[in-house]
């Protein structure tokens, strides 16, 4: 950091974030333990929602950084540094992911969260996972050892790529060595491939396989779109806070905010395009193997409308239409409070999108008879605790990273273009 004052501010924020994070995590882990002991999956899903939310932001920041490197983008140079700090959360997220990974190894029902992990788990209608021909077919991919190896590999890619990008960028601050930039550009070209594959596998394993019968080739792209939206919104809020209270005061220009706003609009449209295409093609084909995933997000087994219908409508109007219409206006992208409001709105609905993807599920009826029950929409205090707790740790990781490098990449070859950037 550039001065003691800013340093101490950063320290304070980091410390507060750490304390809040620990408190949140303790509460969420208490819920996790309750779920673990009682065989109740809902508090465990809270943890997955929390991980999913913060991981998607970090993944989005990793993608943004790499895309900017690959396209030789100059304007976001000062913003890229904030992404680099945000990416410091990956190793912490790996540690925070471990409780989820412990379930298949340590719990008496390995399939507590991902039901395919236990062959004894009953399926709606009749039979068990182990007797299910669909599971038997998928078991070469959906098995616990391979799942764990993939999880380690996925985090390994994120940590390795983000770590190298951070190191080279920070190194440029002191050495001014332009080779760091060349290395970062080369790695980003390859890294985009690696992170795309890792992210796709993560989305399939952690979210899609919750209902392992369901399949969609688009799912990885959905998670990419969602992650980019979340990351851009979080980045904008972060930059505005740093411009108001921290080291970006007078450095972050309206033009930077405007371009981030344009990116928010772009990825709002892209997320909608992907989500709609997936829905539309499945709706149109009307094949029961695929449509059930959307059906349970709309109605119960008896055809009555369930709580997810309202969430689905909320996503259409709240996650697409409202930010889309707002961001079409120039002023929304330049008036600070409006941009921040839209960014917060997008993040809130991103959480809802994760709920929508994670929580609904088919449950067996009490008599294990025909039909199924749908796990309904609910907001648990543990959801909030996990979101705040994991977020606190991620913010702590970011503040810790901020102490390791200059607030902006002062010796980056493109720093002047970014500092003097105008619309």
């Amino acid at each position: 950091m550039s001065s003691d004052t800013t340093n101490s501010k950063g320290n304070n924020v980091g410390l507060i974030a750490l304390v809040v994070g620990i408190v949140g995590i303790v509460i969420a882990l208490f819920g996790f333990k309750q779920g673990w002991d009682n065989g109740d999956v809902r508090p465990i899903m809270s943890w997955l929602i929390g991980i999913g939310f913060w991981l998607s932001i970090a993944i989005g920041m990793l993608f943004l950084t790499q895309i900017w490197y690959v396209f030789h983008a100059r304007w976001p140079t000062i913003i890229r540094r904030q992404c680099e700090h945000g990416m410091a959360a990956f190793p912490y997220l790996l540690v925070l992911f471990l409780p989820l990974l412990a379930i298949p190894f340590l719990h008496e029902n390995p399939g507590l969260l991902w039901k395919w992990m236990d062959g004894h788990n009953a399926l709606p209608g009749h039979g068990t996972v182990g007797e299910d021909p669909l599971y038997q077919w998928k078991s070469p991919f959906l098995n616990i050892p391979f799942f764990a190896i993939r999880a380690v590999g996925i985090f390994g890619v994120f940590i390795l790529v983000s770590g190298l990008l951070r190191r080279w960028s920070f190194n440029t601050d002191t050495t001014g060595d332009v080779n760091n930039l060349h290395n970062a550009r080369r790695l980003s070209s390859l890294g985009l491939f690696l992170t795309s594959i890792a992210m796709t596998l993560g989305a399939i394993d952690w979210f899609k396989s919750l209902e392992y019968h369901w399949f969609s080739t688009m799912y990885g792209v959905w998670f990419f779109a969602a992650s980019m939206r979340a990351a851009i919104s979080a980045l904008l809020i972060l930059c505005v806070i740093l411009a108001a209270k921290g080291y970006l005061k007078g450095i972050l220009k309206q033009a930077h905010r405007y371009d981030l706003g344009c990116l928010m609009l772009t990825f709002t449209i892209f997320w909608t395009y992907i989500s709609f295409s997936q829905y539309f093609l499945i709706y149109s084909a009307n094949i029961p193997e695929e449509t059930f995933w959307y059906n349970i997000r709309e109605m119960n087994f008896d055809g009555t409308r369930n709580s997810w219908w309202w969430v689905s409508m909320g996503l259409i109007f709240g996650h697409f239409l409202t930010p889309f219409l707002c961001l079409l206006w120039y002023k929304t992208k330049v008036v600070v409070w409006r941009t921040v409001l839209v960014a917060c709105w997008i993040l809130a609905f991103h959480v809802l999108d994760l709920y929508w993807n994670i929580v609904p599920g088919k449950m067996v009826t009490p008599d294990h008879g025909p039909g199924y029950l749908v796990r309904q929409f609910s907001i648990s205090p543990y959801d909030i605790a996990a979101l705040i707790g994991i977020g606190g740790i991620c913010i702590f990781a970011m503040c810790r990273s901020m102490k390791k490098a200059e607030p902006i990449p002062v010796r980056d070859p493109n720093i002047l273009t970014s500092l003097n950037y105008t619309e």
Partner: protein
Amino acid sequence: MATTTQDSSMDATQAALLAKVQPAELQEQPLVTNNRDFNWVTDKICRIVETKTPTWWWICMAVALMTASFTGLGLLWLVSSGVGVWGLANPINWGWAIVNFVFWIGIGHAGTLISAVLCLLKQGWRTSINRAAEAMTIFAVVCAGIFPLFHVGRVWFAWWLFPIPNSNGIWPQFRSPLEWDVFAVSTYGTVSVLFWYMGMIPDLSVLRDRAVQRLKKNAYEGAGALAKGMDIFRKNFYAIFAMGWRNAGNHWRNYEMAYLILAGISTPLVLSVHTIVSFDFALAVLPGWHTTIFPPYFVAGAIFSGFGMVLTLMLPLRALYGMHDLITQRHIDNMCKICLGTGSIVGYAYIMEFFIAWYGANPYESFAFINRAFGQYWWAYVMMFSCNVFTPQLFWFKKVRQNWALVWVMSIFINVGMWFERFVITVTSLANDFLPSSWGYYSPTMVDILTFFGTFGLFSVLFLLFLRFLPLMPIAEVKFVMPAADPHGHHGDEKGDHH
């Protein structure tokens, strides 16, 4: 401290931070090399149109016309005999016609991507190639349109595709993506023509003014009456289409605004057109077609094939017109990298389709993909995969990107591979559908082959006419990205001619 703009809200901390700013030196190749001046750019681009028609142009035109005649003959044969002259037969009722349609439409996409999307992304390198790519878009749409138009059988009833009230009370099927294609492609064609034409207006005025200047000087001694006659023609022709452009400040202001709006309209069009083209397949409940990734995968594939074609066209043009300073290695590098990126996205989709076909545990879906790779059309799948996924991986290497002949050959591979992609999608799923007793093998007839072959001639005829009569590059935009136009850069000896 290096030059930075300081905000009044900054305090000492930020000022101290800015004092540390000391950017490292980064050598980057300019977008116009050899320190060319503004006059050179104007002259270079205009002289393509103004000088005597080169012999190679006449030879190419003759060959192109002859090739195009195959399409004419093929269509004549089709109209007089019926669609049966094509190789379509149950169960493969979509054959080369839809393959060729998607192939040509895809090629068009790079033009819009370069002119609209790269404009919105402020990518300066687009300026040297955008005009030719836009022209390519329009000519590709013309070629594409032929196939569905004649596939309707009785082409004189093709206007029924439009929802026009008629005495028979016959309406198109609005729920069919083929009908959506009619709207998508015609909108796309219209906007592309508008965008292309509007971007040319300032350059047409330059050609007009240069003809007027020459006529005023009357410097035609030795050049003959033909040269003067041509300039009179140019003066009038370009004057009409330049619509009174005088380079006034308000002209440029309106132009920039209109350009931006058209770029904004064109960008969703790029996505929508190929998305709807992908719906032609994805909305059918057929293994291999019904898959959710089709929309973005088709868009990426279209951009991939379009950039392949831009490279195929621009590399020879660059050599023929000596435009190495305008279409530099940096441009070629960028285009190769876009091919690498989009080719890899296409590869991601191929693998994802294959994986989910297995993961979905649907035996019909699994069969469709195994049959694609190892069935009767394995050779087409190998062509598709190797040309589209493996070939562009060579673009990782700088030495490959710097070998223009190799890049050109690889761009041909991309074109071939993308044609095969559409063939694989269309034919393999239809040939081996749900009912093994009706399985078939599709072979094109000579009419199919010659009609498609002829479209390359038609495309070339149109492109050659474009080269001869219209400015190949947007003159002002090229100047804007020159080092001489940089207010912070070294101006050298350039003269400030902004024509």
